[in-house]
């Protein structure tokens, strides 16, 4: 099967430029500090529930930097799960908006206080509403993939989920539908494998050695990478995206990552010490390469900690949604997605 496909562009061996590495690091720090602030808000009673992606920054930041961001079929459609705060930050989201959603304020631009933290939605960037259930995005992404295949161009559909969610039928749905011989779809299927489903270990539930092996049965180009290394992530994502953009066929990318604060509030949202921290690993490399000093990195973290503390104080003063707004937007009068406005 794969002999009929054009080979996936090999990830470039060349090191990423120092400027890009520093940009990635800056966003990784900011993303980590954002998640730590969200957890602090939850523990201080400034939010009912936390769930997010600390530990996935080395993968999620490069993803956000590589997304072709915009509205409509010529841009990438994003079907995220609830661990993509770093991706949103890298795309240009203002971190205070994540705090607003955490505090369920009326000013929350993603759901106006209706949804949990890290449940993004932003039509301006083709970010479709994130749901709390772990798998339906793998079924929904088929539709934007079909529309983009028909439209042509370089816009692709990107879907993210976790390893535990691949046990659901919707993951199989995604593999079947994106690789139909009648109409293969330009979908980048991403699984961030943190090896846990809430409190249940991957190893006890899944016999497959790699999730990416499942793609091979469908003739889908598939790969497992070290998602804790931002340089590997960046290069592999760039290559996989280029394949999907040009070949208009699916690619399954499994990124092995860490989960540094457990599943969510449901498991206490406490720091774990026995998993690799991608930020620490990357910072050591930057130090070794003399791109940053420890002091510079500490100052950067302090800067963002202060930024988020200030944002937290601001958000505390913002209003909650009023109860009489619950009937708003059950239905739309206008067809916004067709008008493109």
């Amino acid at each position, binding site marked *: 099967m794969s002999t009929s496909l054009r080979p996936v562009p090999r990830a470039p061996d060349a090191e990423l430029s120092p400027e890009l590495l520093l940009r990635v690091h800056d966003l990784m720090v900011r993303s980590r500090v954002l998640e730590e602030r969200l957890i602090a808000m939850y523990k201080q009673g400034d939010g009912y529930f936390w769930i997010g992606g600390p530990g996935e920054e080395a993968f999620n930041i490069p993803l956000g930097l590589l997304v072709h961001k915009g509205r*409509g*079929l010529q841009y990438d*459609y994003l*079907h995220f799960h609830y661990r993509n705060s770093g991706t949103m930050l890298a795309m240009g989201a203002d971190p205070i908006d994540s705090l607003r959603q955490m505090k369920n304020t009326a000013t929350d631009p*993603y*759901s*106006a206080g*209706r*949804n949990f933290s890290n*449940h993004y*939605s*932003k*039509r301006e960037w083709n970010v*479709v*509403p994130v*749901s709390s*259930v772990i798998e*339906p995005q*793998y*079924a*929904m*992404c*088929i*539709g*934007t*993939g*079909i*529309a*983009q295949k*028909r439209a042509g161009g370089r816009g692709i*559909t990107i879907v993210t989920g976790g390893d535990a969610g691949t046990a659901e*039928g*919707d993951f199989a*749905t995604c593999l*079947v*539908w994106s690789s*139909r011989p*009648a109409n293969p779809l330009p979908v980048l299927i991403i699984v961030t494998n943190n090896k846990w489903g809430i409190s249940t270990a991957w190893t006890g539930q899944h016999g497959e050695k790699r999730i990416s092996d499942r793609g091979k049965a469908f003739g889908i180009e598939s790969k497992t990478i070290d998602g804790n290394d931002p340089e590997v992530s960046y290069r592999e994502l760039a290559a996989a995206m280029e394949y999907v953009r040009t070949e208009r066929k699916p690619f399954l990318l499994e990124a092995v990552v860490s989960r540094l604060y457990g599943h969510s509030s449901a498991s206490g949202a406490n720091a774990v010490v026995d998993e690799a921290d991608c930020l620490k690993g990357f910072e050591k490399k930057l130090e070794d390469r003399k791109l940053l000093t420890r002091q510079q990195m500490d100052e950067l973290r302090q800067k963002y900690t202060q930024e988020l503390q200030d944002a937290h104080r601001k958000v505390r003063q913002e209003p909650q949604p009023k109860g009489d707004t619950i009937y*708003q*937007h*059950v*239905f*739309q*009068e*206008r*067809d*916004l*997605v*067709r008008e*493109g406005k």
Partner: protein
Amino acid sequence: MSNMVQAIRMALHVAEERHDLTDVFGEDVGPPLGGAFTATQGIKCAWNSPLDERGIVGASIGLGLAGCRNVAEIQFCDYAYNTIDLLKLAGMQSWSSNGDWNCPMTVMTPVGSGIRGSIYHSHSFDTVATHIPGFKIAMPSTPRDAYGLLLSCIVDPNPCFFLVPKALMRVRTVAGEEIPGEPGDDRALSKLIDAPLGDRSKWQPQWPDTPDIFIPFGEGRTVRRGRDVTVVSYGRTLPLCKKAADELAQEGIEAEVIDLRSLYPYDWARIQESVKRTGRALFVNEDTEITNFGEHLLRRTVEELFYQLVAPPRLLAGAFVPGVGLADNLEMASVPQLPSIRDTIRQLAHQEA
């Protein structure tokens, strides 16, 4: 004169030619079959999907979010039960994003009994559908209404259910209710738009020139005027209610029959006006009777029209059993039929005030 599946086909044709319908899809929806009930024969944008209802609903949502008007068929509504959370998600795309997104999509699915479909091809879906906020829900009982309601679903910016009563799919339009432009002769229409048996690879439909008809959501139809009892129904049981009312006229009972047509939003003003006149209300559908949509209408009748009622309002619905059994006697005993509808109207009309 068309039957309901032909009317659906003509509406899909009009929608793909004039209203940007981009995809009609589902199991066996494309060539060569054109749908298990032939409702999608000859439609250019119809295509076959894998046998995967979650994929069908998921794809429909994604197409909608991408701005593509689409009709996703679930071959029998019985197969939609494994898609409930996706349907819930479809219904909340606008609300959960505080109005940032909308999702134009239509889930079309055959519902109900009447073809001896046995346990798993006879379920109703109106009660489930009306428990999913964010959807508009249409359920026709005539070919012309099917045509006009389906077009309304397709052009609506929100998710819609188009529930098709299986028992009425082959029932023909009555005189005076034709779709303008359709041939008056059944065989002439069949020759134009029914795919031939055998090899269909070279067949092309010849579509009659039919106009845009958009029957608004929330607009029922009073199919029979009457002073004594208000009967509210939809789908398969609607023509039975009309027939029962016509028969009871010989006994001096004049029942008013309302075809709800649209289950959400629904035409409360019409029900209210009628019940205020008659003081007696009967709600008829064939979904299982516990936590039934008719119970909602009945509750509202009691709460808002209590002092206009002269007798307790009634619900006649399907038996609360796991399925509709195959044997004729089992099906007849499971869902309302003409005799039980007639008897209930009669009892209600005679109940002392």
